[in-house]
């Protein structure tokens, strides 16, 4: 079809090249999850098998611990982020005070800060306060950047609420809790869901901060890192990688569609 002028050939080639560069490694991960060759990754794989799926499921109990830990941490960090992020956004939404912009920046900073700095800072803080490493130290580390995601999403949605809407609800007899439940929450819920899913995905595959706050515990990404260092049944790592992709990519995709729908309907949909 030559109905409309397209991009030039070099531009197209560059675009295709860029996409391949980004996604070919992902495709290889999937491919080698099914290879029959266990020790080295030779291309092309000698032949394909579903054997490693069953190995991962039945013969490798060492996967379950890290997977469970990762899920637990991600859920807890997301819950903390949802509560604190929403509260912070609600507090800063209508307030006018000296230093508001600086405070807002402080909320967003953790996501801009290199994870290694956050990690070192938290580790020395736990050290000074003699807090032993536990699930909660990992959760705390993850919450620092998860809050940012929820905060940003919630604040963007709050800004579209008219303050007089809240006064109208109170005027019609609703107290604070009823106003939050019937007027505010329905209008920010899709933003919270999107922010929460992004937070979950960020937490689930986090490595750097986790390294500093986990101690001897292994989350799934850390388990994978260890597997690469001393490989045995290499394709099993790839099977786990597929799980990680699924668990993180699906929420991000859902978050994208949720916020996109929000843009169109101005929060009036659902």
């Amino acid at each position, binding site marked *: 079809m030559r109905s409309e002028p397209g991009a030039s050939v070099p531009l197209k080639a560059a675009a295709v090249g860029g996409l391949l560069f980004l996604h070919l490694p992902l495709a290889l991960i999937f491919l080698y999850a099914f290879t029959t060759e266990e020790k080295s990754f030779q291309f092309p794989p000698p032949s394909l098998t579903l054997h490693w799926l069953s190995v991962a499921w039945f013969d490798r109990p060492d996967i379950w611990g890290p997977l469970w830990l990762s899920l637990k941490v991600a859920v807890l960090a997301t819950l903390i982020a949802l509560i604190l992020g929403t509260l912070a956004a609600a507090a800063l939404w209508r307030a006018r005070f000296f230093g508001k912009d600086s405070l807002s920046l402080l909320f967003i900073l953790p996501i801009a800060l290199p994870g290694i700095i956050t990690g070192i800072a938290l580790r020395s803080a736990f050290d000074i306060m003699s807090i032993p490493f536990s699930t909660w130290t990992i959760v705390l580390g993850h919450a620092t950047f998860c809050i940012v995601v929820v905060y940003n999403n919630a604040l963007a949605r709050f800004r579209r609420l008219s303050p007089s809407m809240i*006064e109208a609800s*109170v*005027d*019609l*007899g*609703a*107290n604070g809790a009823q106003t939050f439940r019937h007027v505010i929450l329905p*209008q920010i819920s899709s933003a919270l869901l999107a922010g929460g899913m992004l937070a979950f995905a960020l937490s689930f595959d986090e490595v750097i901060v986790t390294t500093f706050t986990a101690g001897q515990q292994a989350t799934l990404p850390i388990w994978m890192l260890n597997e690469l260092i001393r490989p045995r049944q290499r394709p099993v790592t790839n099977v786990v990688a597929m799980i990680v992709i699924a668990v993180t990519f699906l929420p991000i995709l859902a978050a994208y569609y949720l916020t996109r729908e929000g843009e169109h309907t101005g929060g*009036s949909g*659902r």
Partner: protein
Amino acid sequence: MPPAVSFQHVSRHFGHVKAVDDVSLDIFEGEFFAMLGPSGSGKTTCLRLIAGFEQPTSGHIEIFGETAEGLPPYRRNVNTVFQDYALFPHMTVGENVAYGLMIKGVARAEREAKALETLAMVKLKGFDQRRPSQLSGGQRQRVALARALVNQPKVLLLDEPLGALDLKLREQMQEELKALQKELGITFVLVTHDQGEALSMANRVAIFNEGKIVQAGPPADVYEHPRSRFVADFVGSSNVLPPEFAAAHGGTHAWTSLRPEKVRLVRAGEALPAGQFGVSGRVASALYQGAITRIAVELNSTRIIAAIPTGMTTIQEGETVALAWDACNLVAMEAA
């Protein structure tokens, strides 16, 4: 019978700004009361004090004899129609109207029936399943009205309710609001900066300036007998005559208001009857406004604006005309 709303020496200060400054006022049951004033004059803050969104810095507020300060908005039998309507976008029109009843715990069937009834009252029959975003500005305004009225408030507060509507719709809504108020007998308190709106709808008007009520009374009274230069200027337009000029032309030695429509044109050679006073001068401007032509006549010490019915004579800028008025139309004012 206590007044519907009573302010006793009420002040509301924001830091150094005295938004409301020692206001005392009684609004009676069944009254259509208008608070009129320029923006920043304290009228909206007064409304918010009645609604409970603001608490007085000092003074005492009673609503039907009951102390109001300290009472949150949701414990007051008072409802508000907001300037931007403040409809809930995630609810249908019917759910919006039924909101207050739902909060009170009225059963679904009953509150839905009441909502439909109230929607019919504001001429929005059949709109209950729509979203606010699917309505025009005038329709949203009616929903806001229905949402407040369905709760059968003792006092309905209206914050510049017609400000966002175009002229034709505004005039229509003025009539409807007035009819609705008469029919329901609820006390309406209207805040507006539009003097035409206040004069045409209200039984009584309070004129606000700089946080104080400068004059209150029935519209005709306020219009005919402005007590200060501010009221004379703000309510309608007026010639404010300096004391010397007023004393020499039928009035007393005081700042005096003379409404432009009370000034008439004197024909050449006409002798002024007793009780009338006149001046002559050069026409500085003549503005044709349909029913009337507004002319400004330049005198030595002042200028007089006159509203002359159009069609009697054509007046050119630059020509010299004679003007006259009845001495009884000169209203001496207390302050400049």
